[in-house]
C-alpha cells in the first residue's frame, strides 16, 4: 500500500458550552428597540434560561473544533450499508438556501406560494415516474415516518372495505423500523425467514399469508443486497388473499430506471430522499420519506395535496377518505428542494447510470474482498454486499474490531451487525460516487486490517488510535445515564 489515507493531525480540545463564556458577552446582533417597554405580569415572568453568554468568536471556534471531530462523506468514503451515503451536491444546498425557497411561510395564500407548490407538484410526479406508481405524498419526514404513513394507508384501505385485518408479514431481513411502524397501527408483525439464497420464497409466504393478512412489507432489493426475485409471484399471492404489498424503498438506489416497483405488484412504497436522491443526512436528519401509491390507495393519502388548476397550483383539502396529516405542514420542503435539484441535474439517463454504477461498485468490492472476508451469499449483489467475520473469529477478532481499525485507515466503517440473519455482518454500500481508485484504497485497507487480525490482533482490539477519543464505555453510559450537563 502506498501512503495510508488515515493519519494523525492536530485536533483541538474544546470544553462544553457552559464551561466557557462570561456574563455580559454576546454573539448576536439584536435589532434596535423602537418601541417602549410593556412589562409582562409578574406572576407570568420567569427568570430566563440559564445559558452561557458567549461572544461570536467563542461560538465560531466551538463549532469549528467540534466539526473537526466528525467524519462526513465530504471527508472520505462512508460505505455504510443501507444508508446510501453518496456525494451530496453543493448546488442543491445553494438552491435550498434561495430566499424564496428557504423563507416562505407555509400558511400564505396559494397565490403567494406558487414556486413552492409547483416544485412539490413536479417532484411528486417525478417520484411517481421513477417508481412506476400513480400518486405521491411528500409529507412524511423520514423513512420510518414513510413506513408509518404506508401502514396508515393500508389500515385505511381495509377499514374502507369494512373489515380490518390484524397481521403484517415482515421478513427477518427487514429494518427495525418496519415492525415498529406496523405495531403503531395496531398490526401484529408476522416474521418470515429468507431462504438459503437470502431471498423470500413463495412457499414461505404461502405458509403465513391468509385472509387476516393486511399486507406484507418487502425491502427490495433486500438488506442482504439481493433482489427479491419472487416478488411478482409473492405479490400475486398476497393480493389473492386481499392483502397489500408495501415496499420499503430504502434501497431504491440499486434500481432506478431498471425496475419500476409499481409494475411488479407493489401497491405502496416509501423513498428516502436523504439516501437515493442525494440530500445530506445531517448527522441524523432532517430526511424526507415520500410515499408513492397505486390508484386504489390515492384517496387515503395525507392532506392537503397540491393540485393544478389551469396552470395555477393550490392546496386541496377535499379528500374525505384521507388518513389525515402526519406532519404539521407539507413535509420537509427544504429537503425536497435538494432532491428536486438532483433529479433535474441528473436527468433520466444519469439516474439509471447512477444505479448501474452503484451496483458495479458493490459487485467490484464483493469480488475483491471475498477471499479476505467470508461472503455468506455468494451471488451477484445489487448496490451493497454483506460479509461476515467468520474467518477472523478464528483469531478472536470480531466485526467490531475490524470496523474500529478501519477508522485508523481513514474510512468510515460499513454497517455492522445488520442484517440480523448474518452473524457478525459487515454490510458494505459503496454508492456510485466512489471512483475505482477510492474503492481500491478501501479494499487494500480492509485486506491490511484482515492481515493484522491474523498477525497482531491487539492492533484491532486497541483501535481506533487516530480518532479524537478511543473506544467509549457504552455500558456505563446506559447503566448510569448522564443526558444533560
Amino acid at each position, binding site marked *: 500500500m502506498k501512503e495510508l489515507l488515515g493519519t494523525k493531525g492536530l485536533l483541538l480540545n474544546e470544553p462544553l458550552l457552559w464551561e466557557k463564556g462570561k456574563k455580559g458577552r454576546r454573539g448576536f446582533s439584536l435589532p434596535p428597540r423602537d418601541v417602549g417597554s410593556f412589562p409582562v405580569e409578574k406572576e407570568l415572568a420567569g427568570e430566563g434560561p440559564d445559558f452561557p453568554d458567549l461572544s461570536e468568536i467563542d461560538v465560531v471556534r466551538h463549532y469549528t473544533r467540534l466539526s473537526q471531530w466528525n467524519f462526513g462523506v465530504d471527508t472520505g468514503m462512508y460505505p455504510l450499508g443501507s444508508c446510501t451515503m453518496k456525494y451530496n451536491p453543493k448546488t442543491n444546498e445553494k438552491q435550498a438556501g434561495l430566499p424564496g425557497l428557504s423563507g416562505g411561510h407555509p400558511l400564505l395564500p396559494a397565490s403567494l406560494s406558487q414556486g413552492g407548490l409547483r416544485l412539490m407538484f413536479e417532484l411528486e410526479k417525478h417520484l411517481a415516474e421513477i417508481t412506476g406508481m400513480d400518486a405521491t405524498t411528500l409529507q412524511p419526514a423520514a423513512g420510518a415516518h414513510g413506513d408509518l404513513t404506508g401502514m396508515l394507508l393500508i389500515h385505511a384501505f381495509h377499514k374502507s372495505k369494512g373489515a380490518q385485518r390484524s397481521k403484517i408479514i415482515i421478513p427477518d431481513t427487514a429494518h427495525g423500523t418496519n415492525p415498529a411502524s406496523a405495531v403503531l397501527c395496531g398490526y401484529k408483525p408476522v416474521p418470515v425467514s429468507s431462504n438459503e439464497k437470502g431471498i423470500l420464497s413463495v412457499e414461505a409466504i404461502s405458509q403465513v399469508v391468509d385472509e387476516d393478512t393486511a399486507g406484507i412489507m418487502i425491502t427490495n432489493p433486500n438488506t442482504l443486497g439481493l433482489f427479491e426475485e419472487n416478488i411478482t409471484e409473492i405479490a400475486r399471492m398476497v393480493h389473492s388473499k386481499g392483502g397489500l404489498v408495501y415496499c420499503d424503498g430504502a434501497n431504491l438506489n440499486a434500481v432506478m430506471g431498471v425496475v419500476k416497483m409499481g409494475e411488479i405488484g407493489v401497491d405502496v412504497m416509501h423513498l428516502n430522499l436523504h439516501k437515493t436522491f442525494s440530500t445530506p443526512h*445531517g448527522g441524523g436528519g432532517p430526511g424526507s420519506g415520500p410515499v408513492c401509491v397505486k390508484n386504489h390507495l390515492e384517496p387515503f393519502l395525507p392532506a392537503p395535496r397540491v393540485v393544478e388548476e389551469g396552470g395555477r397550483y393550490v392546496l386541496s383539502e377535499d379528500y374525505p377518505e384521507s388518513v389525515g396529516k402526519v406532519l404539521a405542514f407539507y413535509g420537509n420542503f427544504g429537503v425536497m428542494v435538494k432532491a428536486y435539484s438532483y433529479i433535474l441535474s441528473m436527468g433520466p439517463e444519469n439516474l439509471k447510470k447512477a444505479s448501474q454504477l452503484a451496483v458495479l461498485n458493490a459487485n467490484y468490492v464483493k469480488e475483491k474482498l471475498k477471499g479476505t472476508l467470508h461472503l455468506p451469499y455468494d451471488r451477484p449483489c445489487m448496490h451493497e454486499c454483506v460479509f461476515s467475520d467468520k474467518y477472523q473469529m478464528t483469531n478472536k477478532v470480531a466485526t467490531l474490531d475490524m470496523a474500529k481499525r478501519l477508522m485508523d485507515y481513514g474510512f468510515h466503517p460499513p454497517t455492522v451487525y445488520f442484517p440480523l440473519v448474518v452473524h457478525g455482518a459487515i454490510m458494505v454500500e459503496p454508492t456510485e460516487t466512489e471512483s475505482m481508485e477510492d474503492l481500491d484504497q478501501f479494499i487494500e485497507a480492509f485486506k491490511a486490517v484482515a492481515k493484522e487480525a491474523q498477525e497482531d490482533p491487539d492492533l484491532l482490539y486497541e483501535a481506533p488510535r487516530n480518532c479524537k477519543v478511543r473506544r467509549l464505555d457504552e455500558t456505563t*453510559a446506559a447503566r448510569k445515564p448522564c443526558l444533560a450537563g
Partner: protein
Amino acid sequence: MRYLPHTNEDIASMLQAVGVKDLDALFSTVPEDCRLNGDLDLPGPLSEWELNHHMETLSSMMAVGPEYKVYIGAGSYEHFIPASVSYLLGRSEFVTSYTPYQPEMSQGTLQAIYEYQTLITRLLGMEVATASHYDGATALAESLLMAIRSTKRTKVAVSSLIHPLYRRVVRTYFEPTGYEVLELPYLKEGVTDLAGLKEINDLAAVAIQSPNFFGCIEELQETAQEAHDKGALFVVSFTEAIAYGLLKNPGGQGADIVCGEGQSLGIPRAFGGPGLGILASKKKFMRSLPGRLVGQTKDLDGKRGFVLTLATREQHIRREKATSNICTNNSLCALAAAMYMASLGGTGMRELACLNHDKTEYLKAELMGAGFRISFERPTFNEFVVKFPPSFEDTYNRLLEKGIVAGLPLAPYYPELADHYLLCVTEIISREDMDTLVREVKS
C-alpha cells in the same frame, strides 16, 4: 455527469473484475418480467447554470421579506438568524455525516447534541430532552402515546387551543390505535376550559399549549394540579420557543412532558419544514422516551466522550417492542438550535423575548387605539387575535397586493371566529412597519 467519477476505462476494467460483459448484465438476478422496458420520462439533465436559472424563477414566485411584511406566525415564525449560525451549520463535517453510530468518528455531532439536550432542559425547566423529533406536531403525538404507555390508560384530553394542525396529526396517529382523544373547549378569555376534565375517567394525559394558538398564556400551574388530581400526566406543547426567554418555564409549573416546535431557534421557515420537534420530560420517564438520546461517558483512557445511549428503547434493537418507530430525526436542525441558543446566551434570549413581547404589545395597543377589538383579554406573547369588521376581506386582499399579509384568518380553523385574524409580530417587524399596517387596515 460530474457526480459520477467512472471513466469508460474504469467501467471496462471493473466489469472484467466482476466477470460480466456490460452494465446491464449486472442485473442478471432481476427476472426479465421485472425489468423496465424503455426510459424514465423525466426532464433534464440541466447544467448547473440552467438549474440556477430555473430555481431562481421558482424562488421568485414566493412571497418573502423584505418585500413582503408577513404578520403570520401560527407555528412558523420569522426570526433573525445570525450569519455565524448559517455559516457554521454549513460545515460539511456536520452536514454530510450519518447518525453517529460510530461514536469515535462522530464526537462533533455527539457533543453538540448533548449540549443541545442540556440547553433545552434549561429552557423548559425539564430534566431530560431527546436528540430531536420531526416537528412540534409529531412530538406531541409521540408524547401522548408515551403518556398512555406510562400510565397504562386509554384516553387523552387535548386543549382545543393547541395548534389545529397539531391536533390533526394527533388524530391521525391515534386513529388506528383505539385510544381516545377528547378535546377541551376554550373560555371567552382565550384559555382552555378545564371544567370538563372532572367527567373523564381513565385519563392518561392532559395536554395544553402555552402560549396557545391564540397567543394567550395559559394557567399551567392550575392545569398541572387538575391533571395530577386525575392521576394523568401533564403535557405542555408549544409552537414558539422564544417565549420561554421571558415566561416561566413549564417544568417549574408541574409539566411531566414538554413538547413543541423549535423552528424559532435559528431555523428558516422553509415553507413549513424541516422544523425541529422538541421533546423533554422528567427523569422518571427517561426509559419510555421515544427517539435518540446522547449520553456522556468515558473512553479507554478515561477521557470524556459521548455516545448514543439507552438504545434498548429503539426500533433497531427492540423492533416491534420499541418505544417508537423513529430512526432518522432532525439532528441538523437541533444543531442549528444549539448554535442559535449559544449565540444568544441567557442574556440575549431574555432581551430577544422581551423585544418580541413589547413589539406585539405596541401593535395591539395601536390597533385598539384605531378602534379594533382584541378578541381575547388574556396576556399574550408575540401573537394575538383581533376582530376586524365583516368587510375586512376586501381590505385584506388589497393589502396582499401592497405586500402586506395582515394575519391569518381563523375561520377555517375555528368556524365560530369569522372575521377574527391571528396576528404575529417578531423582532424583524419595525415600528414603522406596524404603523403602516395600522394605517392601512383603518383606511
